[in-house]
């Protein structure tokens, strides 16, 4: 029986006296995809930020491999990939430069993965154009190309993906490609926490957390 890698216990968060959630506990098994659902303003983005360690819950704790994520955070940060509403892509830098910096934050070097990932994301020929000149959908795909980069490298790959509305501004073929990427990641034992209004066709175990 595999052990849960990610565990949240009794999370509570309120914003300006507005209670978003309390007593929220769950655990995520390797190979599992977790949908986080709820109406607008129910705290989905906040929950993902808490899971990424960007913000701290008012009460409760998130554990990675049974250790609180804010202690010995490096192991967790190495194993986790967070993609928020803003994808962290800078307009004045090209796709290649952006991805190179994002990889370097994890201590990874580009030895051709960026080229491959961009090609697989339908962005061949756009590698060296400043991202400010790309369309919203293309920009979003640059951000999501990070998933492919890490997928190719098993040892250093992030095991946990935290994705906030990754399908925004993405066309049909992009949606299908991302679905396939997520499926493949989960089949290899990776985990995905995702907020989306899109129903995905997945062949892996899923879990739903409903907020609000």
């Amino acid at each position, binding site marked *: 029986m595999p052990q849960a890698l990610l565990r949240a216990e009794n999370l509570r968060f309120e914003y300006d006296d507005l209670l978003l959630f309390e007593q929220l506990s769950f655990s995520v098994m390797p190979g599992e995809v977790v949908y986080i659902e709820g109406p607008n303003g129910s705290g989905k983005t906040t929950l993902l930020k808490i899971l990424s360690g*960007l913000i701290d819950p008012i009460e409760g704790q998130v554990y990675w491999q049974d250790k609180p994520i804010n202690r010995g955070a490096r192991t967790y940060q190495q194993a986790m990939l*967070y993609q928020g509403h*803003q*994808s*962290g892509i800078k307009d004045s*830098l090209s796709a290649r*430069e952006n991805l190179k910096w994002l990889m370097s934050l994890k201590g990874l070097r580009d030895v051709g993965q960026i080229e491959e990932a961009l090609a697989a994301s339908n962005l061949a020929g756009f590698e060296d154009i400043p991202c400010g000149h790309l369309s919203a959908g293309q920009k979003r795909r640059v951000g999501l190309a990070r998933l492919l980069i890490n997928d190719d490298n098993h040892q250093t790959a992030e095991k946990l993906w935290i994705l906030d509305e990754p399908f925004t501004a993405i066309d049909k073929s992009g949606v299908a490609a991302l679905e396939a990427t997520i499926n493949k990641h989960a089949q290899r034992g990776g985990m995905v926490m995702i907020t989306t209004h899109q129903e995905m066709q997945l062949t892996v175990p899923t879990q739903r957390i409903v907020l609000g």
Partner: protein
Amino acid sequence: MYWYSIKTMIGRELLIAARYPAEVLNPLVFFLMVVTLFPLGISPEPEFLAKIAGPVIWIAALLAMMLSLDSLFKNDFDDGSLAQLLITPSPLAVLILVKVLTHWFTTVFPIILLAPLLGAMLQLPAEGYRALLLTLLLGTPIISLIGAIGAALTVGLHRGGVLLSLIVLPLFIPILVFGTGAIEAATLAMQYNGQLAMLSAMLLIALLVTPIATAAALKISINN
């Protein structure tokens, strides 16, 4: 082990500065204009100018820095790359230090290079130039480092610019006092090693302490 992320960070910041030359040029032009206001607004008399040259250049540099400090983290905050930076497994304080120093190099170093020219326009006595350059070289990085804490605290706020000046300007008073004091001592042919030593000590402390405070401030700001 983390050299690669540090190196990439420097490269990235330089690249961004090169793609937005206005970020570098605007404070520089502002600096030039503020200095010009003094002879126009008070008196072009050479003896008088010689007396105020050091302080005027220092204050103008300080104000020009306030303009550029505001944007230190703002773009990164808006496009989400700040969030990516904050969850890096690499040492955050070191990367922030690198970022602040690169920012200093691209926006403040040109100001320092321009300072002797303005010194000449303001009739700064010949003995004062060495002190002017040395105090600016030691003092302005402290301003960048302390200012980074303020920039981090105000990064998420809509009208952060004025607020940033309000919260950090009082903290810059010692640097201004020792900086201009050293220049004055130099023009009077007196020793100014004491002032330089004070500035160096402050710089050393700022290098060690402020990146940690800035990291904490960024974490507070991303929470709001």
